[in-house]
């Protein structure tokens, strides 16, 4: 008898639990009373991106105070999960009213599928001028802008001043000098460059810079947008140079199996002397208390050196806007959402760099804000830049980007010849035309 009672209890419990599940539903997304609800998804969890998360909360609070009839409901997911969920939501036409997107190639299918709404009207009336030129353009398709960027990054080569001093090395101006540095460090048993190429876009940065310095700022971009061809000799030459670096043991051991986090740690713990990465790393080199003060004091950066005989100049950068905000075309609260995005971008620009160390895509007056010197230097370089080439995998459509990234890994692993590397790119790009 006891056994039966036991089982029955279990069954009852199960049903009770299921029922509590059901009854919890009403608290969810329904519009409560006359209040309108904007659903907003972002990718700055409070744990890992505390400052960003706080700013978001703060902006929402202000927005709700100014618009008492609107409520903003937030969902936070980390990067990878965020992308997956957006994908699933899109397929059922259930996107949030406001969310984050990436530029160019990522954006394309969403716009083509009619899921994002044009934000041109938001940009009118002065907002457009507050953006750094070229940033909103990365979110434009057929002349209409579908996303407002929040971040702007460039990728310098960070270096460890102490190691450089120890081996009497100077910041290189030319690629030849750079190669000498690599050799000197290598001969002294120091890993010259930290790289985690499991993530693949990390290696792509090296390739992109070499392509820029050898072939000039347009050759890669034009190959991707089909004004040019990927079989341009300079693109193959850049690939050869990458393999020369690999052959010279320029990168830390096993880089193709290491994540960016692991690769970065080689630089952060002083095993490797240089690290090519976006300016989003600046907090780790300036304000992050977890990183030893001594290390932060010794961190500097330099611009990717010029290649002799190459067409690129030293003030041309790889970088560009990071995440941007979109408004869903099918949103029931489209107007409110647009207002929110406008409000958000403005408020974000005011505090992103000072509070979270994120360089916003809106203009920052370096005179007015108090920042660590390294930030000021990077911001000044940004103002001086002659060209910004958007990360290749962002420029490309999703499927070409996959091909590109895999080829990058093969290139660094010496598994593909430079000729085939460019040929396979060309084929993948041509297929999409």
């Amino acid at each position, binding site marked *: 008898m006891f056994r039966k009672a036991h089982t029955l209890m279990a069954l009852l419990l199960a049903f009770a639990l299921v029922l509590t*599940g059901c009854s919890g539903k009403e608290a969810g997304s329904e519009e409560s009373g006359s209040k309108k609800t904007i659903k907003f998804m972002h990718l700055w969890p409070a744990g890992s991106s505390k400052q960003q998360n706080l700013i978001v909360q703060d902006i929402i609070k202000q927005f709700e105070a100014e618009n008492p009839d609107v409520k903003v409901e937030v969902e936070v997911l980390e990067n990878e999960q965020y992308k997956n969920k957006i994908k699933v939501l899109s397929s059922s036409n259930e996107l949030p009213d406001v969310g984050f997107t990436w530029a160019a190639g990522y954006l394309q299918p969403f716009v083509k599928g009619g899921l994002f709404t044009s934000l041109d009207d938001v940009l009118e009336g002065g907002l457009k001028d507050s953006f750094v030129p070229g940033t909103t353009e990365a979110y434009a398709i057929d002349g209409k802008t579908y996303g407002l960027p929040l971040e702007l990054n460039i990728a310098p080569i960070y270096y460890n001043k102490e190691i450089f001093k120890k081996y009497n090395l100077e910041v290189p101006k030319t690629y030849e000098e750079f190669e000498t540095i690599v050799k000197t460090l290598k001969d002294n048993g120091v890993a010259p460059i930290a790289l985690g190429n499991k993530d693949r876009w990390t290696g792509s940065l090296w390739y992109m810079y070499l392509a820029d310095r050898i072939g000039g700022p347009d050759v890669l971009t034009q190959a991707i947008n089909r004004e040019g061809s990927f079989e341009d000799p300079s693109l193959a030459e850049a690939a050869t140079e990458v393999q020369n670096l690999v052959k010279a043991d320029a990168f830390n051991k096993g880089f193709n199996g290491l994540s960016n986090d692991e690769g970065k740690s080689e630089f952060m713990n002083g095993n490797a002397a240089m690290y090519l990465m976006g300016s989003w790393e600046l907090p780790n080199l300036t304000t992050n208390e977890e990183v030893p003060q001594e290390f932060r004091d010794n961190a500097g950066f330099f611009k990717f050196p010029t290649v002799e005989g190459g067409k690129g100049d030293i003030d041309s950068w790889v970088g560009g806007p990071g995440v941007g905000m979109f408004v869903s075309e099918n949103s029931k609260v489209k107007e409110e959402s647009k207002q929110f995005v406008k409000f958000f971008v403005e408020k974000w620009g005011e505090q992103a760099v000072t509070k979270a160390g994120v360089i916003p895509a809106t203009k920052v007056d370096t005179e007015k804000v108090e920042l660590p010197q390294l930030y000021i230097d990077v911001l000044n370089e940004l103002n001086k830049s002659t060209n910004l080439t958007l990360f290749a995998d962002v420029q490309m459509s999703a499927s070409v980007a996959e091909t590109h990234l895999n080829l990058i890994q093969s290139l660094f692993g010496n598994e593909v010849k430079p000729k085939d590397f460019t040929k396979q790119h060309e084929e993948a790009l041509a297929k999409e035309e």
Partner: protein
Amino acid sequence: MKTEAKQRIPSVSVDNRLEVFSHPAMQKASKGILYVILAIVAVFQIFPIVWLFLFSLKNNQEVFNMSPFSIPTDPKWENYAKVWTEGNISQYFLNSVVYTVAAVILTVILASMVTFAITRMKWKLSNLALGLFMVGLMIPVHSTLIPLFSTFTAINLVDNPLSVILSYTAFNLPITIMILLGFYQALPREVEEAAVMDGASLNRIFFRITLPMTSPVIATAAIINMIYNWNEFVFVNTFISSDQYKTLTVGIQNFIGQYTTDWGAIGATLMISILPILLAFLILSNRIVEGIASGSVKG
């Protein structure tokens, strides 16, 4: 009979050990070797927990720079504080427990019923039914996400805990049935058949005889289900959007950033989330052995 069986065990246990080598000295030596091997494997199996604990006390610098088993000079207990104060961890915890328990109970009962009907009852389509359930093993989770989401949207279950519980149940049913199946087939039918002769109803037989008799395998299946559900995050992330319905696994996500990840805090989250399941495992795991005692009635 039951007590008799129990009493017998100690008396035979002496000649019950590995008898590959009959000579006593050899026997002793081989037993020694066996224990050494067992101990080595045990160390190997316990070290992940030790590692995880040490991991949870480090910051990123230490996670990557120090050898995995080094003890951090300045243990970062604040990782735990960070995890515990950040977000609604107690709510997530409760949700994890509710989803896991509900889905485990539902799965085990439904799977037992199906297995009972398939192995004990006589009907033409039983093999087909079994086949239908087995197909459920074979579909990769990621190709079901978009269809499942659209299904849940259609029946208005998105952002409802029920979507998660039902998904867990549906996706674990096949494997649970498979596990139960092997046992049901090996189980003697005499007791049940005798009960039928006595005129007991099938419901009665199922609940009062079969379920208790299979409690070791139920415990086994429950452990496996529990582990799967507890650590699952793809369904939760996809079907749930309200913070109030999310589970402990979002605690891990919380520390993954766009460009940097706080590994120490992730370690602390993993450590916190493994404790309840470890406890449940130890309790259920005893059930496997206890179950044998009651199961031996049939022997």
